[in-house]
């Protein structure tokens, strides 16, 4: 059931188009991430949902009711900011209760709700602390509780974790996700961190220069990118230009080397220019098992990246990355050695140029 919907939403700042013809249906309780590079319009889209920007055209609805021009304080939409934005003059409990007090709820109800929220974020002991007495992670949890206390229709989060250090980021994002699921709240999460988007979301909207590039589950976005942009933005990827050799058999060539692909290229003709994309982890060295594509290569360089080892190989005249899991018994090839790598048809993505 559609809960939040954006229909043909655009936003212009003067001559500049920040968001172009954006369409999105979000289901009740769904967690959707906006993922994209800096300046692609993620925040602007979020701010239109919150009511801080009014769309230049298009419509935004919650439960079917048009909220496009409603002021932010009439929308019942919770917002979590990158900079926490806690009220410095109020205690943790007062911060969390603020939205309810503004709604003139009964003192006792406010108190109960604040206690409930404090236990959800496990900060009961900090109820009477002031924001400056908290760590960044604690402040953001309070900000989350404050936004959720008003029982918002939709929870909006704009890069809530980017001011925190790596460890806390990972633990807090897990916490955000579990709270969101427990409360069954619809959430929109803006990030430019693909790992965050992939690990948290029910669906990801990949954005590029104000437009939706692709929408899908993390699984779909990662494994079946439909555009070069998505393919490049999410995960590490070898991309190179190629040419269609046989559309029916799915054959393409990259600088004379032939690859067999499972991508549907029947609509293309022989000689058409395409992008060929292969994830580094989809390659194996032939010693392990043989797949549809078996390719001669030369070892160019070897990089340790912790849990994986990234080996650069040259196939024909084109360089590719090949990832293998690190383990102490790994039989690493020598630089300059000739070898063979293999990958399945499905690993070879053929995208429009």
């Amino acid at each position, binding site marked *: 059931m559609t809960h939040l919907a954006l229909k043909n939403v655009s936003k212009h700042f003067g001559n500049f188009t920040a968001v172009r013809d954006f369409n999105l249906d979000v289901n009740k309780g769904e967690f959707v991430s906006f993922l994209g590079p800096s300046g692609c319009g993620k925040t602007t889209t979020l701010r239109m949902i*919150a*009511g*801080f920007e009014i769309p230049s055209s298009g419509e935004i609805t919650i439960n079917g009711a048009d909220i496009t021009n409603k*002021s*932010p*304080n*009439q*929308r*019942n*939409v*919770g*917002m979590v*900011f990158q*900079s926490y*934005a*806690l*009220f*410095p*003059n109020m*205690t943790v409990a007062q911060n969390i209760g*603020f*939205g309810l007090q*503004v*709604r003139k709820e009964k003192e006792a109800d406010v108190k109960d709700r604040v206690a409930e929220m404090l236990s959800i974020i496990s900060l009961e002991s900090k109820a009477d602390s*002031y*924001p*400056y007495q908290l760590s960044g992670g604690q402040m953001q949890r309070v*900000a989350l509780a*404050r*936004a959720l206390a*008003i029982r918002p229709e939709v929870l*909006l989060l704009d890069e809530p974790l980017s001011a925190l250090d790596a460890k806390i980021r990972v633990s807090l994002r897990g916490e955000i996700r579990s709270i969101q699921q427990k409360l069954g709240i619809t959430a929109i999460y803006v990030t430019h961190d693909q790992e965050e988007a992939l690990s948290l979301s029910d669906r990801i909207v990949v954005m590029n220069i104000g437009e939706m590039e692709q929408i899908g589950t993390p699984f779909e976005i990662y494994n079946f990118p439909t555009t070069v942009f998505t393919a490049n933005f999410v995960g590490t990827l070898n991309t190179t230009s190629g040419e269609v050799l046989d559309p029916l058999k799915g054959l393409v060539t990259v600088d004379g080397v032939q690859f067999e692909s499972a991508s549907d290229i029947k609509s293309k003709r022989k000689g058409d220019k395409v992008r060929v994309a292969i994830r580094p982890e989809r390659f194996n060295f032939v010693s392990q098992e043989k797949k549809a594509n078996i390719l001669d290569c030369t070892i160019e360089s070897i990089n340790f990246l912790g849990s994986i080892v990234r080996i650069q190989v040259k196939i024909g005249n084109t360089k590719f990355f090949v990832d293998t899991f690190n383990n102490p018994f790994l039989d690493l090839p020598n630089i300059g050695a000739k070898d063979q790598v293999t990958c399945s048809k499905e690993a070879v993505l053929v995208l429009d140029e």
Partner: protein
Amino acid sequence: MNFITRLRKFPFWSWLWFIIGALYFILPLLATFEFSLSWDPANPLKAYQRAFEDNRFWNSFMYSNVLALATIVVSIILIVPTAYWIRLRLPQARRIVEFITLMPFVVPAIILVFGLIRIYSTPFSIPFTDVVFMQPLTNFKMGTNILIVGGYVVLAMPYMYRSVDTGMRTVDIRTLTEASQSLGANWFVIITRVILPNIRAALLSGALLTFAIVVGEVTLASFLGVNAFGPYLFLLGQHRAYEPAALSFVSFLLTWLAMGLIQLVTGGQGQAAGTH
């Protein structure tokens, strides 16, 4: 954090400059104080006794304090929303407004007061008719009070605006505003419960400066013919030696006392927010 550990965190140079500044400020005060005690060696407080015996002192001093309070209240009502709106929505207007607030430094008070008198000493009539709907402000007491508070608001504007604006810079008022809005707050709630408490320290310093200006002001008060403390002190200074020194010192103490009271009243949790 207790006082001692807080002290330790202070670097040497901050202290040095603080002490130099404080001396610059305190030494003249001490000199005045010493002089005021030297009238009659047998009775060091003679100057004070004489000064306090005079009813005109109390009247003018109280009157000036009321004027100062009124000026502060009007300034805050006028300047806080203006500075807020400029920071939030009209950053382009910033330069113009800053220029306007600097006018009192460029235009001397004497010109301001003659302008005021010239404009407000004629009755307000409906243009092109003889129908008068208000007597000249200078003709009745309340009117003069309104006029002088208006003038003081202008004189205090550079200090008030700057304090408030600086206070707003130190808290991210834009994001705080948006956070409050998304929680359902309207403008009144945002300004009174979020913005004002968070610029309390700045307001206090603006109020302190305004207070000092108004209580000591002579030009506007004497030309508008009100019995304010400034003209009284001035008059006294022309005829007496020791009492003006005593009064200057006392008025200083009283002003500080008043500010201390404000600090106490508005303090409490403000202390915590202030250290943020």
